[in-house]
């Protein structure tokens, strides 16, 4: 499969952005979910994606680690074109193996945790480092224990996911993604499946991560978190970026009516 890339001479000069999304298009059948979405995420910053249900936030996030293929445009992470190999004006889709290699550098956290239920918390974390990155077992275990400690679950290494609360599972899922030493973390509504009293612990871990300089793209409706942590807020609707900027600008002085309507509905 090959797609035609938009001619854009400036892509080679964009070095300060860790993630470059340029005019990405995506349809499911006749339904166009992403229409020319462009977005840049500087290294070490946090971008919060906001928008009503069905606006294409999850789809955009999933395109970034190629869980979805794109129909046009390009996504560049750390200087590498995601999912495609460029030759001239055509881009050829990579083999599953090459794509898997690219995904190692991009961690993802899901709304429904998706921990492996047949493995303990510790086994969940060490599986990919040992099996994929080839880390020695002892080293992977030490690192996994540090990560569990960091998300406040040092005593839960031997617990199976079914023995953990939702908030604990999500923190294990974050530790699991971090174990591959990603340069970018994607969060798709990480707290929306949680009971309200468990949301705080997960957000704390994410705040901590942001403070340490991790580049993050977060889909969330937690306005408080976005205000406190985000460097950039992007409001999407109907598959396009309606408005983006510093959180104080987007939240306190939205320029578009659609943004205002949405913010009123979530407040």
């Amino acid at each position, binding site marked *: 499969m090959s797609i035609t890339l938009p001619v854009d001479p400036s892509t080679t000069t964009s070095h300060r952005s860790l993630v470059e999304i340029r005019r990405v298009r995506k349809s499911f059948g006749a339904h166009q979910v992403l229409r020319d979405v462009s977005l840049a995420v500087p290294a070490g910053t946090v971008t919060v994606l906001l928008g009503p249900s069905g606006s294409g936030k999850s789809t955009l996030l999933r395109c970034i680690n190629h869980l979805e293929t794109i129909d046009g445009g390009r996504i560049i992470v750390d200087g590498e074109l995601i999912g495609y190999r460029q030759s001239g004006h055509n881009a050829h889709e990579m083999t599953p193996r090459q794509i898997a290699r690219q995904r190692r550098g991009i961690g993802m956290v*899901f709304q429904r945790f*998706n921990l*492996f239920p047949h493995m303990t918390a510790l086994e969940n974390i060490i*599986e*990919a480092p040992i099996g994929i990155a080839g880390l020695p077992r002892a080293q992977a275990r030490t690192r996994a224990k540090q990560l569990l400690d960091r998300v406040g679950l040092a005593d839960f290494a031997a617990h*199976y996911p079914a023995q953990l609360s939702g908030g604990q599972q999500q923190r294990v*899922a974050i530790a699991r993604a971090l174990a*591959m030493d990603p340069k970018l973390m994607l969060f798709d509504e990480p707290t929306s499946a949680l009971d309200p009293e468990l949301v705080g612990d997960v957000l704390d871990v994410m705040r901590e991560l942001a403070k340490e300089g991790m580049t993050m793209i977060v889909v969330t409706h937690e306005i408080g978190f976005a205000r406190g942590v985000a460097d950039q807020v992007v409001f999407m609707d109907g598959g396009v970026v309606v408005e983006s900027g510093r959180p104080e600008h987007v939240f306190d002085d939205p320029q578009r009516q659609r943004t205002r309507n949405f913010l009123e509905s979530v407040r």
Partner: protein
Amino acid sequence: MTALEQTRSEFGTEATDDDVVAIPLRRPWRWIGAALVLLLAAAFLYSVLTNPNIDFAAIGQFLFDQRILEGVGLTLLITLISMVVSTVLAVVVAAMRLSSNPVLSTVAWFYVWAFRGTPLLVQIVLWGYLGRLYEKLSLGIPFTDVVFWHIDTNQLISAFVAGLLALTLNQAAYSSEIVRAGMLSVDEGQREAAYSLGMSPLYTFRRVLLPQAMRVIIPPMGNETISMLKNTSLLSVIAVLEIYTQATVISSQNLKQVELLIVASLWYLLMTSVLSIPQYYLERRYGRGTSRALPPTPLQRMRRAFASRRHGVAPAPETKAVSVI
């Protein structure tokens, strides 16, 4: 001291007015029913054991007869080979069925349709007659005269091989549906989580999807193995010398049909009983993480029972005395 004993000593001796001792409902009909069934069973057993037409000495004599033991061995061998090969084949067929390639999934569908839709007995006889259909089997380039190697069919496909082929191909059709159901039972989010960690499709299948599918696959596969063991007796129609054929061969000489059928049945019972042991442990292994605590193995249960006997107190049944607060 077990937890239960502790509870009893805490609550039993210092019972206050607030404690209520629950006494289970008496069920006299259970006792009457049980007595009736026991009586009937005893009567049946008596009629069999005192039946002058059954030669019990012959049963004892043939139970460990050389030919019977060889039959047992062959039955086990056929069961083992056809279960292993058919399971591998089943995974392939299931993967084809689930594939997005329409040719592969249609071929897989057709395979299951054909082999599930005809009686196993008919398939066995057909494989036995294969030599009549194709006298020679050859390896060459299709639709040309180029032949690298050929062999007389009856020479290659002995009754044993024909039987194996029939059982294996038939079983693969059934097992592939079990494997497919198992794969479909795994949440799609599991694959995505695995992919997002950089796992390849094959690695994901092996380490993430298959172990979870196994939980759904193993109980019915245990059943299939037991069915397979018994279905080997159908190979008697093409004269494969498994245990049932051996038993009929012997009884055709000494006319002790019932005795030899009892001998064969005893062996079948023993073999199917033994087969349920590995199933239990496999279910336990792949059940990890599904419930909050794993059930104890029979061995652990026995050890626990002995341990409490040594302390002199048998653990109280849970419903005998419950403190209600």
